[in-house]
């Protein structure tokens, strides 16, 4: 089970050292961004509704749309796509680095003149 004799487990709050820890950190950052974006924007819209009888919700126009329609209907789905893009680009680089590390490790472990 473990080289060190201590029992290892998968736990998102205690990721195993190395590549998994990096991955979990990125996942946590993206989920926090997602959560803040969804809850934060809705709280902001609620505050705008409550103040001045919703005056700003009719006056603030973005890309032809009232601000709350633009934020929830256009911006948030776009933000989700961008977050997905960032995650995938990071994962691609992360996997490439890991693969290079594995190849280097194998190359170093080979004796001089040994054919792979």
């Amino acid at each position, binding site marked *: 089970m473990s080289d060190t004799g201590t029992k290892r487990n998968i736990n998102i709050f205690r990721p195993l050292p190395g590549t998994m820890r990096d991955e979990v950190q990125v996942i946590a950052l993206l989920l926090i961004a997602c959560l803040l974006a969804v809850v934060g924007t809705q709280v902001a819209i609620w505050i705008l509704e409550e103040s001045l009888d919703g005056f700003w919700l009719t006056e603030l126009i973005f890309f032809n749309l009232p601000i709350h329609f633009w934020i*929830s209907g256009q911006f948030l789905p776009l933000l989700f796509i961008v977050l997905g893009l960032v995650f995938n680009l990071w994962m691609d680089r992360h996997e490439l680095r890991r693969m290079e590390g594995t190849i280097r490790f194998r190359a170093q472990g080979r004796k001089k003149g040994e054919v792979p």
Partner: protein
Amino acid sequence: MAATGVQFIPLLMVLGMFLLFIISGLGSKMRQASDYGFSGSYSGRVGSGAAIASNWMSAASILGLAGLFYLKGYYAMAFVIGWTGGYVLLLVLMATQIRRFGKFTAPDFVGFRYESTIARTVVALISIVISVIYCVAQFRGIALLVSWLFGLKYKEAVLTGAALLVIFVVISGTLGVIRNQRLQYFVLIIAFVLPLMYINRKLGYFWVLPQFGYGEAITTLQEQFGFFWSEPFASISLFQWLALCFTLMFGTAGLPHVLSRFYLAPSMRDARWGVVWGLFFISLIYWSAPAYGVLARLFDARAGNTFKLPDPATADLVTLTAVTQAGLPVWVTGLLVAGGMAAAFYAAAGLLQSGAAAFAYDIYPRFISPGASDSDKVNVAKGVFLVLACIVMVFSLNQVGLIAEIAAVAFALAGNTIFPAFLLGIWWSRTNEAGVLAGMLTGVLITVSSLLLGDLVPLVKVIFPLTSSAFIGAPVVMLVMIAVSLATRPPSDEMVAFLIRDVHDTGGK
């Protein structure tokens, strides 16, 4: 919308679209994906994204969402954010890991991960219930469109639509038609967005990107008719809105037919990139859907009904109402109806088939006929398909709610049961059979709690509303899973080793 006889040109367009899908499905037996306009490794991801989006398209997306905007305004934005945000959860928490598990269905996954036949059976049963509820929403969409196409009353249209669906599945099955999801997506998006561009152009709005152009309709409604959209949380509290939004997110990440897509991806990288492309393609629909609701409101106002309370029974047909009220050519209406029919038909057929397969492969051979052969299972699946279609048809005869709201109940059940089972199954190796069983049963109780206890204990309706119970429910289920797992025997060392070695990126250590 009153039915006025058979609509011949739209009917021909519906038949033409189904013929196109059947012929392309027959052709795809011999063709490669690259023959449909994509090539190389890049095509795999775009094509996979289109397939994810096509798999997702249903009456709820094409008809239900616009109806909800028309009826309840900003409230419907919870669906847009919930349904798209769920794909972020799927991407970062599940897509790669599910692909690494290599299991083909949700019951397969749960049965293997928790080393439990009982857990597998419970997930199969939950999958069948989810399929039935989601399918009721699709049947409502089919019935409304059939009612408009043939000039039938609602109940007659339900029966006709069900018969047409069964005939369609039998013909497709007999001919061996393979579903060409990529082609379907691109046809559906054209059928949905083209009429919107046409309406915007006719009204003199910015038609190139009607997803933004419809904003002028909002301004017109305010300035000319005194109709304001400035009270987003007037009909629903901020808590209720967030509860619905997060329930739909968790449900999206827990729907069995959505999760199944990742087993089919050629590689982990394709699985990840497919989700992002899929999210983009799905967003194209959701960026457009509010426009139909707003434009229908504008046409109401122009007809002198600015503050008319919309009829919930007809709100689901508002995309069609907007197109007909705009006076567009009949072929444009036909295109939209054909797109709506195709989305609802394929979604309903897929859901019924997956429900039937869950019974035939996960329940029948284990509890009814242990020695069943493969051909027996296929025959049982066909029979169960018909039984499920009849059950759905009976439930659909009464108009129990809006398409999107009925679908939301299925999302709540998935979010309270399958989502926590997958999430903890992947990310906490200590979760075991007892934990997942206790959790899923708690999830089922939470989902139906407002129906069972809502009148006795009003607080239950506030915390666990029928369509929005997973916001509080999913975390409660996870806590139950954790507590029960810690109190009982841990999973086998082999399973923990499998999670460390094969499912997670632990650098091979």
